[in-house]
């Protein structure tokens, strides 16, 4: 099976879906001639032309608004927000319009649209190119929020997102784009939205994570394995709808949970996981639910030591795992 990077998995998924379905079009800033700042749409303009690969103005509200209109008129738009940090001008279109359409039309109209956005820090992006925005959108009924961590899942979930009848936010951790390689089969397959994956089985405690943090959790698990701590790692893959069954099943097995995520801790996505576990698996807990998350500063700093201070790491994860194991 060929080995690919995550960015290649994105390219494959987009190209294959555009070949498969003529309603699929791509729009966003520099997605056409340039092929995207991360090259996620490289080659599409040449292959499918300017009618299906549209360079948009620098106006995110317009990108999403146009995509909603296209979707309502029978197209399958995949909008790219160049950096998740820039998605905020489109918040109104996403939350007030896209998310509600099915509900307010009593099920008659959906918005089959995907919004792709690279997110996350650790790449010297500074304050405006490093944010995690998933918690804002995971809060909203009517949206699906996907955050894959492997090339295989990226391709399969992006295809599933494009074929979904409702709006999907597809967050790609930009540090993983070329860092992570993995086996990706040629040809068509999908990965279902809403299913988490146990990526490492263990019996002493569970680390629940998504995106880049999954790799740190796996690395930490290997480190502490030598110390006799057997760690289970869950990659959530989809943040909304959450695969509660997989989470609760693991908690019932290990009774100790660390939720590791990059966003700042307060009201971050991990807070919801912690709340669900406290509500639904209280009697299975053997330790307080623990979160390892970013510090409470407004953004990821630019300076290297400060960025390292902000970002999760295998070492930070291993230390948290040790503390939880010792409880």
């Amino acid at each position: 099976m060929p080995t690919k990077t995550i960015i290649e998995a994105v390219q494959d998924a987009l190209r294959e879906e555009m070949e498969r379905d003529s309603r699929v079009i791509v729009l966003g800033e520099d997605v056409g001639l340039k092929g995207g700042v991360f090259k996620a749409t490289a080659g599409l303009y040449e292959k499918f032309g300017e009618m299906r690969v549209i360079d948009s103005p620098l106006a995110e509200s317009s990108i999403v608004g146009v995509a909603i209109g296209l979707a309502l008129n029978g197209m399958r738009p995949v909008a790219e927000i160049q950096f998740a940090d820039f998605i905020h001008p489109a918040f109104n279109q996403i939350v007030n319009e896209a998310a509600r359409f099915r509900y307010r039309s009593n099920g008659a109209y959906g918005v089959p649209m995907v919004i792709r956005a690279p997110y996350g820090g650790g790449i010297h992006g500074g304050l405006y190119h490093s944010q995690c925005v998933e918690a804002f959108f995971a809060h909203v009924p009517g949206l699906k929020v996907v955050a894959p961590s492997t090339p295989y899942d990226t391709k399969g979930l992006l295809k599933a997102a494009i074929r979904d009848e409702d709006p999907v936010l597809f967050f790609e951790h930009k540090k993983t784009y070329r860092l992570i390689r993995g086996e990706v089969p040629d040809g068509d397959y999908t990965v279902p939205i809403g299913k988490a994956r146990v990526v490492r089985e263990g019996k002493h405690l569970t680390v629940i994570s998504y995106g880049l943090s999954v790799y740190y959790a796996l690395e930490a698990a290997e480190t502490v394995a030598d110390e006799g701590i057997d760690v289970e790692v869950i990659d959530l893959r989809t943040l909304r709808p959450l695969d509660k069954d997989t989470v609760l099943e693991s908690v019932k097995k290990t009774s100790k949970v660390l939720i590791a995520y990059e966003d700042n801790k307060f009201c971050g996505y991990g807070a919801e996981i912690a709340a669900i576990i406290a509500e639904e698996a209280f009697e299975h807990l053997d330790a307080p639910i623990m979160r390892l998350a970013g510090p409470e500063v407004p953004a990821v700093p630019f300076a290297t030591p400060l960025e390292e201070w902000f970002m999760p790491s295998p070492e930070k994860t291993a230390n948290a795992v040790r503390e939880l194991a010792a409880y």
Partner: protein
Amino acid sequence: MATVEVKMPQLGESVHEGTIGKWLKKVGEPVKKYEPLLEVITDKVDTEVTATESGVVQEILVPEGETVKVGTVLARIAPEGEPVPKRDGGVPAAAMQREISLKHDGAPPMAETPKAAPRISPVVARIAEEHGVDLSQIKGTGREGRITKQDILAYIERRATMPAPTLPAPPPVMPAPARIEAAPAAGDQVIKLTPIRKAIAEHMVRSLQVAAQVTTVMEADMSRVVSFREKHKDEFQRREGFNLTYTPFFVQATVNALRMHPYANSTFADDQIVLKRRINVGIAVALESGLIVPVVKDADEKSLLRLAREVHDLATRARDHQLNPDDVQGATFTITNHGVSGSLFATPIINQPNAAILGIGAIQKRVVVTPEGAIAIRPMCYLSLTFDHRIMDGVAADSFLAKVVEELERGGFKL
């Protein structure tokens, strides 16, 4: 990063050295990040140097009065959460070590001394209950000797291989009531408990289980009550549209007695007695299906007329099943009028969490000897007071009951 160094800061562009004025923390003392650690004197400014990390002052390297160059290490702080050497083959219990070292002011961590009552996590509590495990039998390996899930599971596994009778069954907290053999014989009729029947059964048994109940009985001469009622009942019926009963008289007499005997209007709670400020009198009302106790709230603020109206209203709505949840809550004392069915005196069961319950017997004309020594025929009534001996002793209870009797016999009622 084993320790954090505190260095002589640059306290101005042209300042190259500083003198230690005073150490504000001693070795072994905990210090918070940004908390002043020492005073520094330079030829330009005197200032405080703060800790760069939270932790424990591990070393002071420069004594007071000494002048050193900028950048000289002045002290070392052992920060919180610092990784510590692994314990025997297991997990480096960073947090555990930290807690211990803070508690002992930086002294070397002592050998583990498990606390008397370590915290029990939800999963351990559940497993212990499911498997009937006496947790005191398990030595915990978690932080501060906490029993972990793995500890209890290992214990259960070990126990399964141990000879069975070594573990005596733990005594039940409360002796379970003996089960009555009630297998119905041929022709017996089996009545399924209605919810209200079930609630009454539970309340009554529970009351007898939790309170030390004693019943004391006194007799009241009801002449003045009866004659007052006879005099007013027709007009009352015309005006109010319902019958003037004896109940409001008993409520009023009880309320007046409760005012002077707050312990009869109290609640026993663990290690304290709560004297209730409000006087809310519950009135037991017999229904076809059972018994319910609506409550006259703040009965001490109400006239006889108002009490009569409320008792009538509550009793009517009780019989019509029209009571609101609020109507049956908050009783601080309860009256039961068992005399309506001819009972002379009874030993009522306290309506928890009250301190007492007053039972009212049937009013009967009896031959009595008056205080003057004459023989007379008087309408008499036995009053039975069941009180909680945990709260009141006999003298106090009798004193309260005597006050009720006095109030009934005194007369002077106003409608």
